[in-house]
């Protein structure tokens, strides 16, 4: 028999090979797409086609179910690692003018003496996101919210670019530098807590996560507590809330004290 006759039904091997494969495929498809979907008593299908679509993973929109109404607003900011990645000088200049109104709490050089966050040299994407959240109401603060509520998209971008442009000055929290506590460097694997340093510097940075070195201890602690209690909820997919809830009060203390004691110039150079 020549190679030409290989793909003909006259060839026994062709018949057997294709027949077995096809048979297997049909049997497994019937089992996977029809029999097994109906074998799940907790799922109701209108008809066989419905079951097949479900098993095939066809995206379905359940028309009858309405999304539960959100009592509080969630963050709607979408960040990528390219957000505000290339600011121009003009934007920074405009931001400097706009930022004069921020100086009363965040300091004229972006370093706060009022337990507000230090913004000098903070990542632009971080400030951008927080301002958006304050504006939309996803995050609220009696002092901060009124400032943010009237900002335009461009103003938010300009302010973010301006603060990101400022040099990271040593903060006004002169405490001796503490060694890295376990929660910062190892997290708590058994409670599903990733190390703080995996996103907030020390080890690595993730888009949208601020560096924390030299920030006010009282501020850091208050934010962790607010995230744990659910009072603050503008973290995407509850990333920080899940962590803060699982942290012990001692870990909150340790993390806040550690970061407050670090000079910001140790922020890992990643740019």
């Amino acid at each position: 028999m020549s190679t030409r006759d290989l793909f003909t039904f006259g060839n026994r091997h062709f018949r057997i090979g294709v027949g077995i494969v096809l048979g297997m495929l049909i049997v497994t498809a019937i089992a996977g797409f029809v029999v097994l979907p109906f074998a799940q008593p907790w799922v109701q299908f209108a008809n066989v086609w419905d079951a097949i679509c479900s098993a095939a993973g066809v995206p379905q929109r359940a028309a009858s179910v309405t999304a539960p109404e959100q009592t509080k607003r969630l963050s709607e900011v979408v960040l990528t690692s390219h957000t505000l990645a290339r600011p121009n000088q003009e934007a920074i200049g405009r931001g400097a003018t706009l930022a004069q109104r921020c100086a009363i709490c965040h300091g004229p050089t972006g370093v706060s003496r009022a337990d507000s966050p230090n913004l000098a040299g903070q990542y632009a994407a971080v400030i951008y996101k927080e301002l958006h959240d304050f504006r939309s109401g996803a995050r609220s603060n009696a002092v901060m919210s009124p400032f943010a509520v009237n900002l335009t998209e461009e103003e938010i971008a300009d302010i973010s670019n301006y603060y990101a442009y400022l040099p990271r000055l040593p903060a006004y929290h002169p405490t001796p530098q503490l060694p890295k506590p376990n929660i910062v460097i190892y997290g708590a694997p058994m409670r599903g807590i990733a190390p703080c340093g995996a996103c907030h510097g020390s080890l690595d940075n993730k888009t949208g996560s601020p560096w924390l070195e030299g920030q006010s201890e009282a501020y850091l602690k208050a934010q962790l507590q607010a995230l744990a209690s659910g009072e603050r909820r503008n973290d995407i997919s509850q990333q920080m809330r899940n962590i803060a809830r699982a942290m012990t009060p001692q870990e909150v203390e340790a993390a806040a004290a550690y970061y407050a004691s670090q000079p910001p110039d140790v922020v890992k150079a990643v740019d």
Partner: protein
Amino acid sequence: MLVNRKLILAHFWFAFAVFGVALTLGAWQMFIRSPIGTWLSNPELYYRSLTAHGTVMGYVFPTLVAMGFGYAISESALEQRLVGVRWAWTGFWLIVLGSIMAVIPIALGRASVLYTFYPPLIGNLFYYLGVVLVVVGSWIWVALMAINLRVWRKAHPDAPVPLAMFANVAGSYLWAWTAVGAALELLLQIIPVAAGLKNTIDAGLARIFFSWTLHAIVYFWLMPTYIAYYTIVPRAIGGRVYSDSMARISFILFLVVAMPIGMHHTFADPQVGAGFKFIHSAFTALVALPTLLTVFTICASVEIAARLRGGRGLFGWIRALPWDNPMMLALAFSFVMLGFGGAGGLINMSYQLDASIHNTQWITGHFHLIFGGAIVIMYFAIAYDLWPHLTGRELVDVRLIRTQLWLWFIGMIVTTFPWHWVGILGMPRRMAYFDFGDPAIAPQALSVTFSVIGGFILLTSGIMFIVILARGMRAPQVDAGPYRFALAVHQPTTVPVALNTHALWVALMIALTLTNYGYPILNLALGGGTSVPAVYVGAQ
């Protein structure tokens, strides 16, 4: 008739050199996250090392062994000088270049994404380009294997293709097609993002592409091992292959069903429909068939050797086997590890059972036992068997070879059995450290400590292997004679065209890929709205 010995030796030496480095990294990784090591203060170093270990062991080492062995088979089984030697060297240098290109960003900490790529995590562009070069280099080998077989066929129309070459070409076709999945993932998904052309990625689709490669790549790693089972072991222990047809059917079955089963790696992924997961699960069960056929055929072949040596009785013949022959020893160890690893694999492929061990250390234990154990120990055996023919020098220290094989076997069992155990207890894989001070996992500390000891036994054995081969380069010269493969009890004079060619089976392989992967891929690729922002390694 081994003419291009330098080419084959170059493949083997580069393979074993990078294997030595990756093995050392592996042992270090085990130590550093065990109760006897101190916690790494920087987990990134662990993932860096893990990426290097996986990339070398998954892509570079087995590919080079399969290629080197493939060239040796082509020349000696077909008794024909390799056609396209220049291309073969090009392929080799592409792999060397690709490996270096991939390893530099890893070493700099710019590509700690693990060898499974892990989108939306995105590393340095050169890491991915390096991997692409490795794959392109290996595709040259695939083409050369097909061309050499074609040239031989023209000169020997209608003659049965020697089993070793038939299997070798089946393995190369399997690799060519299965590598397409990762290639699509890299070219369509990851590289545009790594190059900065896009900043979102469909991680779910990328994972499906990778599953296309991820499972059949194991069978590509396995091919040299199975070729050694069928065509080297019986000859080396003085027996014959029980059935040439059974061997061909096994390789054909691998070709057809190794490919459309990768989604059993995505059982926990929400982007794939349950129906497709079931089909993949069922076809994965089928892939046990060629392995069972092989175990039967090889046991029968070995029994033939034992009876020829005067073995008697129902099981008495086992004692008559040449147990001091390294090839016999390697085969036995390989089978034991294949048995345990295969049994574990049946659990992984079961939709329900998988849930209990998904992403635990069990999985790490499983693939180390199968690949590092059953497969790699036969790579050692292949190297030992080929070495005198490649170097023209004798491997004198058989006792050292036996010790090396014993240590590898013991080391692999001691490493992987505790891994399986702690996996059942729930220990996750891919973690840089564990807090063994925590009462919840303190009882696992002992098992993990044992596995570290196993890791260092493996390292010792690996070093011995390289030393044995290096010493073999300086041993007294001998004439090893032509390199031969095992003959069958009934050496075929004619073979049905379906068992002598690959076309039908390659067609079935591609058809099953379309049926089993077509819809899930199209669904995600055309559906839209499933991309997420990329997370760049080391970037803010």
